[in-house]
């Protein structure tokens, strides 16, 4: 398969997945470019051990998580932001929230949920993105995360519990 064919087939998948992680169009565009650059670089090394879709999903997840880490580092080291870091971490407010797939009437509720999801550990975040936003079954999502369906089920359960704690804490503020 050529890069162009792969791009045509998976561009929307990658772009929407990146949006689910970053909730920001510019970041999602950057991630989509990075993913296909990585696909191009590794096209010859790709062994058909995994499905192409699974492989692209994994690259997209890793690039999205890298982007979030970079964003977090930037925020952490910003001299002026440093003073209000604690506030930003507990408040459920996303300054860069710009998701074109969210309707105006759902914006506030979903922004609140995403703020909670963003505070979860990486693997729990990925479990929620794949199972709830991508609407995959445990069987489909497990190989992407290199887990067994059973392990993914318990990871998702922990993610739900943690998210509940985060959201209830925010309501208590």
């Amino acid at each position, binding site marked *: 398969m050529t*890069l*162009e064919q792969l*791009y045509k087939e998976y*561009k*929307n998948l*990658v*772009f*929407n997945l990146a*949006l*689910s992680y970053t909730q920001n169009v510019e970041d999602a*565009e950057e991630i*989509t*470019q990075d993913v*296909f*650059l990585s696909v*191009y670089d590794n096209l010859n090394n790709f062994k058909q051990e995994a499905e192409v879709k699974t492989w692209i999903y994994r690259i997209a997840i890793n690039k999205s998580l890298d982007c979030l880490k970079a964003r977090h580092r930037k925020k952490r080291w910003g001299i002026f932001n440093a003073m209000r870091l604690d506030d930003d971490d507990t408040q459920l407010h996303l300054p860069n929230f710009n*998701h*074109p*797939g*969210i*309707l105006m009437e*759902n914006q506030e*509720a*979903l922004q609140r*949920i995403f703020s909670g999801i963003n505070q979860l550990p990486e693997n729990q975040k990925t479990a*929620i993105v794949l199972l*709830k*936003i991508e*609407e995959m079954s445990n069987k489909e999502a497990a190989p992407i995360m290199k887990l067994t369906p059973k392990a993914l089920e318990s990871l998702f359960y922990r993610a*739900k519990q943690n*998210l*509940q704690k985060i*959201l209830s804490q925010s309501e208590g503020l």
Partner: protein
Amino acid sequence: MKNTSSNIEMDHILNQLKNIRKVDAPDYLYTQVIARIKATKKRRIPLAWTSVAAILFIGLLITEIKIIKNWSHNNRTEVLEELVPSANNFLYK
């Protein structure tokens, strides 16, 4: 009981994520991907250049080692000549 109801509530909250619509990736992204691939290719040094540089470096290293070896050998001989007096009758002249 409380656990079950909160679990249902959480499921309800997470089900709101299904309201997110899928959007199309902008068309210009592919052009940008291709531009980035070309830019990366330009930046990459060809293998031949790297090989030539590596051979030159190794050659230089070997020459340097040889020079140092020669120099230290000559130096050692000079030091020995200074330490061991030469067998001549210079003092008695």
